[in-house]
Structures are given as C-alpha cells and as structure tokens.
C-alpha cells in the first residue's frame, strides 16, 4: 500500500472538518476524491501533506508514519501536491518554479554555489535538463523564461503539476487540477495525468468537481460529505449511488 489513511480527524473549533476518514491508495492507482464544497476534501490533503496536524488518526506512506512530520520532509519522503487556489512562485520564472522543486535532490553544496566550482556548473546543467523534461511534458518548454504569474490560468495549473513532479514524488495529490479549464483543456489534462502516471510510476489521489474527468480516468472513487466518506467504489457504482446523488446534488438528479 502506498498511502494509507485511517480514522483521520480534524476539528476547527466546533466544526469537524474531517471526521474519521479511511482511505488507501495502492501502487499505481488513480483514485478520485469527490464531494460537495466544504465536505473536507482539501483538508484531507492538508493533513496528509503536514500543513495541518490531525487531531486523531494515522497517515502512512509505504508503512512509514507521516503524522507530525514537517511538510518539507513529507515531500522528500515522496508526497507532492498541487493546490486548489494555485500557489506558484508567481514572480519567478516558469523555469525557476520547476528548479526550486528539485532543490532537495540538488547535486552541489552551498560552498560550490558561493565559489562557483565545476560542481555548481554541472549541477545547474543537470537542473536545466530536468526543467526541459518536466516542462516538455506539459508543452511549456517555450515558456520557461516567462514569469509564472503571467501564464494563462490553464498553463499555471499545468506548471503546478510539472513543479510537483520535479520534486520526484511517488504519490501525487492533485487538488482540482481541471478547475477553470475548458472542455478541450480538460481532455488534454486527462491525457497528461494518465501519461505521467505511466511514466513516473505514480499513485495519484485526485480531488475534482468535473465529473467527466473523474469518471473518465479514476479507477476508484471515494465520496465525502460533512467530513466523512459516505460512499466508495467504482465510478459506475458511484454514479448510481443514491446517497451520493443526494449529498452531491441535493435532489433526485442523475449524474450526467
């Protein structure tokens, strides 16, 4: 099991944002986490990546505990994420965004950097190759000298995924990667997600509202409402689940 979440609980004042959530993600799996706004999906991501500390429950990566470990160490253990409300290094170049994510795998030390020894130049060259690799996946290689904040919304979302990949994760958490994208872009994004999973042997947990994307590429789904997982199963099963339809849409409406 890559990622295993058991009994995860987080309160904010009197609100139970996440209440006893169990989730697991196997090697190479692509699992969707869906649910209405405010149901606690993003809080689950924040708990897994160490931004919040859970009140109860456990999170393990390949059997190793992640609770109480600072976010940067969790990233180095192999968990990377994107953010719902895009958190790029806005005033830096596209290239710098990717290079920064690779910092923990850097090939030169601080002394080499200050004295600009051969190691520094080799390390920088290596970084450029890495930038090239990750940007070309998302067809952003021609944009590498541009300021990240000046990219279009869709490109910013793609850059965020490229940046997450540059930190060499085994588990990738995508928080609404298709938000704000048009149908064509969503189609391309689905291809990208499947391609990177294959290429980097990733296990992916995905929060999404666009049903086309979720139903199209996820192997399993978990549905959250009021901090709890109310249903789980194959996309086809979830599609017809009465509890889900009620939670999600309120009334007797079929999905799609």
């Amino acid at each position, binding site marked *: 099991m890559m990622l295993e979440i058991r009994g995860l609980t987080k309160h904010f004042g009197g609100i139970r944002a996440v209440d006893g959530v169990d989730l697991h993600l196997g090697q190479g799996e692509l699992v969707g986490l869906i649910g209405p706004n405010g149901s606690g999906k993003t809080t689950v991501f924040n708990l897994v990546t160490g931004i919040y500390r859970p009140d109860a429950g456990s999170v393990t990566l390949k059997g190793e505990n992640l609770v109480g470990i600072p976010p940067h160490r969790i990233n180095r253990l192999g968990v990377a994420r994107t953010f719902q409300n895009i958190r790029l290094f806005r005033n830096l170049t596209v290239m*710098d965004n990717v290079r*920064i994510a690779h910092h923990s795998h850097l090939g030169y030390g601080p002394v080499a950097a200050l004295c600009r020894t051969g190691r520094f130049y080799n390390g*920088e060259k290596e970084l450029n190759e890495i930038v090239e690799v990750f940007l070309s996946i998302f067809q952003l290689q021609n944009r590498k000298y541009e300021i990240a904040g000046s990219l279009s919304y869709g490109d910013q979302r793609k850059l965020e995924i490229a940046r997450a990949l540059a930190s060499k994760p085994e588990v990738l958490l995508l928080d609404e990667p298709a938000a704000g994208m048009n149908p064509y872009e969503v189609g391309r994004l689905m291809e990208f997600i499947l391609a990177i999973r294959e290429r980097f042997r990733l296990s992916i947990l995905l929060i999404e509202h666009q049903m086309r994307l979720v139903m199209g590429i996820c192997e399993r789904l978990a549905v959250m409402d009021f901090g709890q997982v109310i249903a789980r199963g194959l996309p086809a099963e979830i599609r017809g689940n009465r509890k889900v339809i009620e939670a999600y849409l309120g009334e007797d409406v079929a999905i799609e």
Partner: protein
Amino acid sequence: MRLLRSLIKPVVAYAFLAGSISLLAEGGVVNPYWVQILELACIVAISAQGLNIIYGHTGLFSLGHAAFYGIGAYTAAYLMKTYGGQSQAAFFAALLAGGGAAAAVACLIGLPTLRLTSDYLGIATLGFGIIMKVVFDSADRFLPELGGARGMTGIAKMTTVPWVVFFLLASLLVVRNLIHSSYGRAILSIREDEIAAETMGIDTFQYKMVGFVAGCTFAGVAGGLYAHLYAFLHPSNFDFFKSIDILVIVVLGGLGNMSGTLVASFGWIFLLEGLRVVLPPGYVEFRWVLIPVLLIVTMLLRPQGIFGAREFPFLRGKVYR
C-alpha cells in the same frame, strides 16, 4: 581552473576601482571629505545588500538592521583597540569577527522567531534594536573601552578606499552567487509562497535562518568598517532611525534587486551630503523633509523600485548549458 577564471573579472574590477579612486584622492582631484563620503556610501551599500537578502529576497521584515551594524562596529572596534593596534591583518580579522558577532546574535534572535510568521520577526527585531541602543548607551559599565553614552574614542583610522571597495565587491559577489544558485532560489521561494515552498521540499525555517543570518553578517562587517572610518562610535549611530534609513534604501532600490540597492545606497548618501551643500545655512535639517517626500514620490511612480526587475549585467543570473 574555473574558480580562478571566475575571479579574474572581480580582481580587475577591484584593482581598477580601488586604484583609480585612490589615485584621484592622492592627487588631490577629489577632496578628502568627498572620499570619506564615498567610503561611507560603500559601507552603507554593504549593509543594505544584507537587508536586501533579509527583506528583499527572503521576504522577512526586519526593523533592527542598525543594531546588527552596531554589534559589528563595537565588536571590531573593541578588538582592534585592545589587541589589534595598527595591523592590517588584525583589522581584517576584526571585521570578520564583527560579522561573526552579528551572525551569532542573529542566530539567537532567529531561532525562536523564524518558526513563526514574518510579522513576529518584525516585532522581535524592533524590540531588539531598542534593547541594543540601551546596551550601547550603558556599555561602559561592563567594558569601559566602549565608552557608553559618551561615545567610543581612540579607534584607529583603518578604513581606506581599497578596504571598502574590497568588501563591497566581495559582498556583491556573495549575494550574486547565492541568489543565482539553487540555495538562493530556495530563499526566494519563501518570499513567494512559504506554504508552497514547504510542500515542495524546502526547509523554510532553515532557509529563513540562512537569509537572516547572512544579511546580519553583512551588517556586522559594514559596521566594523564604519567604526574605523570616523574613528568614533556613538550609540545614536545605531538607533531605530538608522534601521529605517537602510530599509528606505532597500525599498527605493526595489525589493530583491541587487543593482537597485547598490545605486540607492550611493544615491542616498550623496543626496544627504549634497543637500548639506545645496541647502542654505540653517535649513540643512530640511533634508529630512525632502527624503520622505522622495520616498512617497518613488512609491507612487515606481513602486517596483528604481530598477524594476532589471539588474546590472554582472549581477544577472545566467542559464548554464
């Protein structure tokens, strides 16, 4: 080999700048008063580059930069006065000790406060600056040589044009090499988005410490040079307003812009001294009215600083293939 080659340009620049300025001064072309102002400008530029690392690059708000400048000044002056005499080597060591003392104190301030958000550092450094002013004022109680509120005298005049040019170029070289490396980009990522930096594997606490301590070290070294420029130290040279002066320079130059900080440092010092010449006698204190006006105008017209995002060629980052 590459290291040696990369040193050619700085050494040539050093020889040219130090040599030509010294020649102009020796030959009587520039009078000693303006040479001293130039030396002061270089010293302020070193200190400002330090605050630019802290505020401009790392995004940490520090209001106590002058306190670290003072720690460097008093440390270097005390060491030179008691052990150094007139020796150039001892002077060099004393300057490094001044920087080291500032760095050590910065560590003590940073350890508890940098785990919190940036605002707390602002408050902590503000308080620290005020405490240090009191310490300098009453320093003669524990070390009579420091002079306390009467000021410290008997410091050797060791600071010369070659020394200030050397340390200014060295500080520019260090900032440039730091910022245009992966370590520098890690520092910049904290300013950009601390949470994103953390989740991308950057130990933000560690790099905030690096930025803060490095910046304070610059202030310490600059303080040591300052002490041996006028051969007199007074606690009022290191009060809260002196911290604000450096902050204004960094903001005028554009946050995180090394060239802008450099130009703004020289502009600031020469403007202050120039106004002393230009303004009619009795109105010299109006300088302190003109400077804030200048600041407001700059913030309205060029909020990104005088240079914007541009850098001098020698301070630019390059992509190595």
